[in-house]
């Protein structure tokens, strides 16, 4: 590289460190305690509920019915979703085969600008997840071409579909089992609840710039 | 150190020497009562901490070297102050790292004990309370707490006195604001801190505040007196001696 700043910075760092003998990297820590799958579900639910996420444990076989009921309860008029994921395909199928008055389901197939504007107007965005981390209580969300980044960020409600068998004990475990090192997505997220702040007098307020509500459908 | 020790050195600290000699005597007497001979090398002075903290390393070394040369026999060196003990035990090796005195400093440091730690962990002193019921509160001096880790030893000694009730401070571990030259260089900050400490002490209702460090005591007592508070501060050694012995003419 012929960037002079880069050259000078690196050369100064090298000369600053010349008397340092490189040592081995820190060894791996003792692995975190492992919980049973049932305990993981319980712990995750507890953690997320404590920070005002809404967690519904639902049977895989009829989650779309539960979701319809929740959407009706909340009076949603329009829900944005992605595409190309088996769960989202199920969702679309459930919508198509239902003659009732349901909220509009808008898949993000459009190009960037128009759909971005749309997201600012829908009531909820629904995404799949890569799983969750039990010890800290967080969902793992990897946006994809089919499920864009803003889908879980801009709508006031984020609905997340979490298969219960993909709950890991810890972030370290998730990273290892899912082989993150081998290929990180452009954007990877851990999401533990609705957005919040305590910047004014430490009074906790939910719903700042990210979604006001996080609804987790834990599929068992 | 041979165990059990038969003889110890006593490093009184410059503040005890000039301002709280009674506490120094009490500390020596209690060591003797616990069964060791106490040697006080004459001409001992300051451990060097004030200069060290102010960044005047050469001068700190000069004072420290003087002490290194006085305590020549292989006895434990017992120090009635957490900050001075920490200076000698933890900081002397750093102060002299890379100098000709490094080895001597390390050997010296290895023999240093804070006074309450020595009484509890090495001598296993037993105390009997001769005094009337009284409420006290304990101020955790910063270096005693964080560098020497001897706060529990001090409290263990107090707890041996059955007529003494301990009332905890709200912010027991917060600095009193002395910090040696800090009180002189940053007087407004130091004043704010000691005022809060005094409010805390008065708030416990205890008549006596105990500490193991005379810098803290000087600071706290000065502020208590200035406010006309009835509470007063005592060095732990003096308090323990007074509680466990009938007053004697030479004290």
């Amino acid at each position: 590289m012929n960037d002079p700043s880069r050259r000078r910075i690196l050369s100064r760092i090298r000369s600053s460190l010349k008397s340092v003998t490189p040592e081995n990297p820190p060894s791996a820590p003792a692995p975190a305690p492992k919980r049973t799958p049932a305990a993981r579900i319980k712990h995750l639910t507890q953690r997320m509920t404590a920070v005002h996420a809404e967690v519904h444990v639902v049977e895989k076989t009829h989650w779309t019915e539960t979701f319809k009921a929740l959407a009706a309860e909340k009076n949603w008029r329009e829900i944005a979703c992605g595409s190309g994921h088996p769960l989202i395909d199920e969702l679309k199928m459930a919508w198509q085969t239902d003659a009732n008055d349901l909220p509009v389901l808008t898949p993000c197939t459009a190009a960037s600008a128009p759909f971005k504007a749309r997201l600012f107007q829908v009531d909820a965005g629904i995404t799949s997840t890569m799983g969750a981390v039990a010890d800290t209580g967080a969902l793992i969300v990897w946006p994809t071409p089919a499920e864009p980044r803003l889908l879980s960020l801009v709508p006031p409600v984020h609905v997340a579909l979490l298969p219960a068998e993909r709950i890991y004990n810890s972030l370290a475990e998730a990273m290892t089992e899912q082989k993150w090192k081998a290929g990180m997505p452009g954007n990877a997220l851990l999401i533990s609840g609705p957005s919040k702040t305590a910047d004014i007098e430490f009074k906790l307020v939910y719903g700042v710039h990210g979604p006001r509500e996080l609804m987790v459908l834990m599929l068992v | 150190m041979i165990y059990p020790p038969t003889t110890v050195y006593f490093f009184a600290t410059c503040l005890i020497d000039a301002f709280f000699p009674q506490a120094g005597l009490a500390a020596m007497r209690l060591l003797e009562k616990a069964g060791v001979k106490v040697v006080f090398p004459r001409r001992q002075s300051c451990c060097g901490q004030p200069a060290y903290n102010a960044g005047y390393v050469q001068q700190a070394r000069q004072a420290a070297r003087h002490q290194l040369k006085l305590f020549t026999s292989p006895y434990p060196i017992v120090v009635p102050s957490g900050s001075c003990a920490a200076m000698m035990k933890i900081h002397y090796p750093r102060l002299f790292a890379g100098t000709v005195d490094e080895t001597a400093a390390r050997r010296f440091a290895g023999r240093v004990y804070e006074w309450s730690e020595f009484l509890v962990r090495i001598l296993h002193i037993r105390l009997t309370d001769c005094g009337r019921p009284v409420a006290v509160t304990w101020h955790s001096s910063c270096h005693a707490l964080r560098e020497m880790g001897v706060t529990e030893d001090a409290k263990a000694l107090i707890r041996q006195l059955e007529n003494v009730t301990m009332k905890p401070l709200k912010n027991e571990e917060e600095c009193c604001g002395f910090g040696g030259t800090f009180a002189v260089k940053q007087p407004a900050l130091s004043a704010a801190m000691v005022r809060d400490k005094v409010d805390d002490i008065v708030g416990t209702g205890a008549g006596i505040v105990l500490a193991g460090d005379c810098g803290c005591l000087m600071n706290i007592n000065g502020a208590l007196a200035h406010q006309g508070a009835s509470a007063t501060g005592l060095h732990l050694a003096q308090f323990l001696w007074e509680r466990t012995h009938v007053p004697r003419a030479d004290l």
Partner: protein
Amino acid sequence: MYRAQTFDFKKNVQAALADRRLRRNLRAAMDILIDNRHKAFPDAAALERLRSRGHAIKQHALNRLPRLLEELEGRCRENGMQVHWAETAAEANDTVLSIVRAHAARFLVKGKSMVSEEIHLNAFLARHGIEAVETDLGEFIIQLCRETPSHIIVPAIHKNRQEVARILHQQIPDAPYTEDVEELTAIARHTLRRRFAEARVGISGVNMAVAETGTLVLVENEGNGRMCTSVPEVHIALMGIEKVIARLDDVPPLLRLLTGSATGQIITTYVNMITAPRRKGEKDGPREVHLILLDNRRSHILADPELRQILMCIRCGTCLNHCPVYTRIGGHAYGHVYPGPMGQVFTPLIEGVQETGELADASSLCGACEAVCPVKIPLPALLRRIRRERAQPHSAQGGGRLKNMAEAAVWKGWALANVFPVLNQAAVKAGAKTGRLPTVAGPLKQWTNVRTAPRFADRTLHAMLNATGDGDE
């Protein structure tokens, strides 16, 4: 409070101490943060192991800094990011400006970044007609009243709700006056949402950058960070070179230490890991991601084996929270971007020891900071070192001054008295005649503003023992 043209630390301290409301707000706030951290780490032994691990990770990263920076740059470029090296604050600012101009942006949205404060980015951009809109709620409030943040993590903590209500009502068109915190937050959300939607450029800091994968890790609770880094077409990430870590495996422990220490959370609402701009087929995300690596004296600091330890700092703010001095004066009194114990070490090293070394005097060396630092930086030792540098007339870091000379004379006299204790004893004897330490004038005078003067004993311990013969070998 703007940074003063001439920095009068003592004056700032006096003013802060006299401000009762500030002191009340601060005390309450720091007590909450201390308590939260305590609850976040219930197992003391586990915390110790975690801190040691954090220390090892950061130390290792510093020891291998040039290789890691090259690896980070290589990975980031492979992933489609652009990487810029800025030796100075000016260079970093110029780089940001040129990117902003290339996209014809008149304003940008900004997530919290201490480095951007360090280089005074907002003021620089303003001079060039570019508006930098702060989007973190605390920073947003501070910006509206033209102040600087007073705390690394909770920048508006010195303001109570009435003050915030007044600021929003006065500064935002059509905003009603309300002291309800939820309503105030809703006003901010509404106001900023439009800016997010319209912004062409978003700026953020970086909590840690993983060399192994070229990943930038950002933590936040509000969602404004994700908005700044995902909505606009361009994302600029500003990072001090010391923020690079070696491996993805290093992230979980550092994350836990950071969130637990900063706010007492086991995890923040969002952990945002950015590895690339918008990839082929993706519908959103920035088309360009620019990583600016800032030096600004860090490569110099690295040369000193002891002082280099300050570069392990992960900017959690917990040293501030536990500091009895910070608790009483707040961040503005320090007059510089980084307050509290870490700021008292870092500021002299980037702004000059003679110019700002006085900051390091505002510490009793109580050690509360060191006891809680998540990566075990020996802050009291570094503060002493800054004092030492300042005291040396010809040291690499410092330079002599008249005041230093006077103080040096005092210590020389003191050393003499301690090497020839007969001098000491004589001084005390003379002092005992007057009863009290002379506090009429000079540096000891202020002692008696709040305390009675210390009383010399009638006889020193030396004298007593000489009389009785006790303590002889």
